[in-house]
């Protein structure tokens, strides 16, 4: 109980900090502009295509785009987490306090995910608009949202790890971006092999492969296992990175 209380103290402070800086609002504006534009285009297109359903013509592509855009935006949100603390010499303050390293990581993780979810919540307007036209396939919409939430959690975990490696925010965001994009490109590069088993294994390790199931409304238990493992793995890496100052 006290453990989570201390995590929340840090998370609250981080959130207050982030929402008092202009970065999040700039990103929100950019994000809703892009998504609104894309949504509008897909909607116009779908009126001309009589063979596809609303789900195939609007929902699936728009969620694909949201996921892709977060690959760019998540690094920008997470880059300051540890890099800024190091630059201000305040990381020592946190490490000297009664907070454990894991509590610090969790606090930062929760606040960063909350910020991304705040951005994501702006897209709730799209299903609302669709509902006026009699759209009723809500299962796919909510499973897509679940997929997005799990994906951004994974992106945030990577971002936290990269931010803990350096005291330069630009380096942190570029590194996060490289790792995320690199793992996305793995899906494409397995096309080069004829080894079916290898292709399956590599595919399984990438986020888009698991996310894709969610956008079709298919909830696979192994996808949940994958995301949990992904988070735990990067939390441990971040933990080691924070502890490395004591090596």
């Amino acid at each position, binding site marked *: 109980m006290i453990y989570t209380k*201390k995590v929340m103290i840090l998370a609250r402070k981080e959130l207050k900090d982030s929402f008092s800086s202009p970065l999040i609002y700039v990103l929100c504006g950019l994000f809703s502009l892009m998504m609104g534009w894309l949504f509008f285009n897909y909607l116009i297109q779908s009126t001309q295509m009589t063979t596809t359903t609303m789900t195939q013509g609007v929902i699936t592509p728009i969620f694909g785009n949201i996921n892709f855009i977060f690959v760019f935006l998540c690094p920008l949100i997470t880059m300051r987490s540890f890099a800024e603390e190091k630059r201000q010499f305040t990381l020592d303050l946190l490490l*000297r*306090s*009664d907070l454990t390293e894991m509590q610090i990581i969790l606090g930062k993780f929760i606040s960063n995910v909350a910020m991304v979810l705040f951005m994501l919540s702006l897209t709730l307007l799209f299903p609302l608009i669709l509902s006026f036209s009699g759209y009723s396939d809500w299962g796919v919409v909510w499973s897509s949202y679940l997929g997005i939430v799990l994906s951004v959690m994974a992106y945030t975990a990577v971002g936290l790890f990269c931010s803990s490696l350096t005291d330069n925010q630009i380096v942190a965001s570029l590194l996060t971006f490289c790792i995320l994009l690199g793992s996305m490109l793995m899906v494409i590069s397995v096309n080069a092999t004829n080894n079916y088993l290898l292709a399956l294994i590599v595919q399984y390790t990438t986020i888009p492969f698991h996310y894709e199931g969610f956008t079709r409304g298919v909830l696979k238990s192994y996808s949940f296992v994958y995301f949990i493992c992904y988070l735990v793995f990067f939390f441990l890496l971040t933990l080691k990175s924070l502890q490395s100052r004591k090596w």
Partner: protein
Amino acid sequence: MELAIEIENLCKSYPGRMALDNISFSVKKGSIHGFLGPNGAGKSTTMKILSGLIPETSGRFTVNGKVGFLPEHPPVYPNMSVYDYLKFVFSIYAGAVNESRIDEVMSKTGLTDVRSRLIGNLSKGYQQRVGIAQAIIHSPEIIILDEPTVGLDPVAIADIRSLILELKKEHTVLFSSHQLHDVELLCSDITLINRGEIVVSGAIETILGSLKTNMVLKARVQNFSDEQKKKLMNSFAIDAVDVAHDIEQKNTQLKIATKGKADIRAELTRFLVAPEIGLLEFTEERGDLEDLFKRIHE
């Protein structure tokens, strides 16, 4: 004597460099202990080890009580208000917020007037106070301050100095400084470190006393002739007498360096108090820390 900090054979090595080489010293409970040394001597490294930020390579140290630490750069969030910041620091230590304790610390460190201002907008002197406030907010027994007066104006330095004296009532203070004047005014004990090795450690009076090989006395008299100078030189074990006539004040200043360590002050005053000389002032020039610093460099 109860000890607050005890360090034995502490070593810290970085690849290719020995930052601390077998240092040992102790800090008495309830004292203000000065930690001196040139830049890069290992002061900050020692303080970081004592506050648990970095591990020691070898050796042993015991710290009897909670530690409050002010690093070289005060660890503050520039876009937080003073009150919010102290509340945050308090809660990551205690898990709960005690508003009266925060108010108490703010009034002790003179921050009450700026409680709702952003730390980034405060002057360096105030930021340093916020740094000290975060070091004492969780009521530690021992406070470690790394160069608390560096880069401040004389008024701010005087403020911080009186704040440190105030802290002595409830805490043990270990602080490093380049301001030798501060150290002489505040500390009862000092430790001198150079290139990762302890040069000397102990009570400030003993250390300054041991510095002196001879005594330098300063006197101001009404009249002093060459004859009297000769007489003075002949009757006492004196190395040199420097006579300077002060035209403005219409009297004469003497600087007398004695031979050896013998205390001849009583005899000298008896000589100088004669009516034809007329003694006005008589002081002993103390060896100060500046001499000590110069000697380390030699």
